[in-house]
């Protein structure tokens, strides 16, 4: 397993000293979970969800106002012009 490739997919910028440690630990756990390969699972349906599968419907309407702009931005690390501020993504 290439831990740097997985970390990039997970948007985790690991430091150099983290890489060997985490790689070893994740590989150890992967080795353990490989025991599921022993089971014959032909014809077994997967379970995505413990509950009974059902559709929940409600009237199409609103419940009144959600968070105000001020409340929604209150926890933001950086705000500009009443919006979340990000680094430039287009040159």
């Amino acid at each position, binding site marked *: *397993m290439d831990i740097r490739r*997985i970390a990039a*997919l997970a*948007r985790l910028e690991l430091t150099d000293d983290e890489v060997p440690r985490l790689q070893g630990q994740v590989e150890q756990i992967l080795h353990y979970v*490989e025991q599921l*390969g022993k089971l014959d699972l032909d014809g077994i349906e997967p379970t995505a969800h413990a509950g009974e599968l059902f559709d929940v419907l409600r009237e199409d309407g609103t419940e009144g106002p959600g968070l105000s702009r001020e409340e929604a931005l*209150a926890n*933001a*690390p*950086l705000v500009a012009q009443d919006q979340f501020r990000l680094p430039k993504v287009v040159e």
Partner: protein
Amino acid sequence: MTAPRSPGAATPTELPSAVNPAQLTIAELRAAYASGDLAPADVLASIAAEIDARDPAIGGYLSYDLELALEDAKSADLSLPLGGVPIAVKDLINVKGHPCSCASKFLSGSYTSPYDATVVRKLREAGAIPFGRTNMDEFAMGSSNENSAIRPCRNPRDPERIPGGSSGGSAAVVAADIAIAALGTDTGGSIRQPASHCGIVGLKPSYGRVSRYGLVAFASSLDQCGPMTKTVADAAALLEAIAGPCGHDSTCLETPVPRYLDEIGRDIGGLRIGLPGEYFADGLDAGVRQRVEEAVGTLESLGAEIVPVSLPHTEYAVATYYIIATAEASSNLARFDGVRYGRRADSEDLVSLYGRSRDEGFGDEVKRRILLGTYVLSSGYYDAYYLRAQKVRTLIRKDFEEAFAKVDLLASPVSPVPPFRLGEKLLDPLAMYLADIYTISANLAGICGISVPCGTVETDGSHLPVGLQLLGPPLGEAALIRAAHAFEVGRPTG
């Protein structure tokens, strides 16, 4: 250590003047309110003083806000089922105006909840006052509370030992009598295992019984919120308050909530209780086995019929769980990107801003699980790991369906070992995962479970609590509470 209390339904309590109100059960506190012996504001102030005096040695709380709680106390309607009762809340459950750090550096000190979780709204509707944010493993990932990025939490019964996890703080503050009762969450045993290790009652409701809206999600198909209390009656009272439908959680069941408190005192004659052989196999500590076997004997003497059963896929549960839970976690924790809330690393490049915010903000266990979950969902590995685990989950669910066709409840240990010393397993994540063997299947199958104290084992001079686990079928909480209470009052003490 505190003296054992007499569990049971509400009984009027004589209050000596020096009583610490945090020693009381919900039932006792309500009786003291009814008789006029105590008032909510005084109770809150006393608990705050107890926390200040004793929690530094325990580490059960991450914060509390006496001012906000006293404000809530002014309008407390003592006639409601939980009127004026302070409830400690695990630090991943949103309470409007309070911090919600998930014991993570990612959120600590920078996040204030903009709304109440449904369980908190329901607590308020029942008259309760959320008071105190309890310590936990970061984002609920862990079984010892050692993954808290804020501070360690210790077991009040032996401060050298772990309180269990991930709801370790909730268990510790209830056990140490610095809280009346608490809410925890259970994704793979995180209510039942710390309850067992600290010697209190912890109930994991069936999947869908309690709303997850406003809980910071770890693994959405497994997470449930439930009560952590001093008595089974208190667990019934809290569950009755928080259970029920929620328009904000499409997995929350519409099924009406029974009157769980009516189960308190009912007898268990004729109840069929199964003993899964796989839960008493190699690896179970001899002392723990002895306590649990004695507990089963007590259930039998109370009229239950004990039936051997088998859950043949038990040996695959840990592997299945650590694929499904980590896959869901890797997806759920994508929201922590450094943009809308929480930690933000300084970077001029957006992808690097995400990557560095997350690397700086998350601890090792969270990174391990995100990496593992990302791997098992990644292209080329999905079928071999994630899909395969989902199929084994079906087999595990069927094991329980077949067992519950024969019996009403199952009885087993909660943890194969008593609480270990802080640091003992920290360097071996897999060894820590393997100790979850008796609790995680319940989450995979969506069934309900409870841990109720069944004595202690002596290890190196410490008397360490042991929990009896009872498991019930989906929405089987009523029988669970009936049997747990019958055991609690029927168990020989000493």
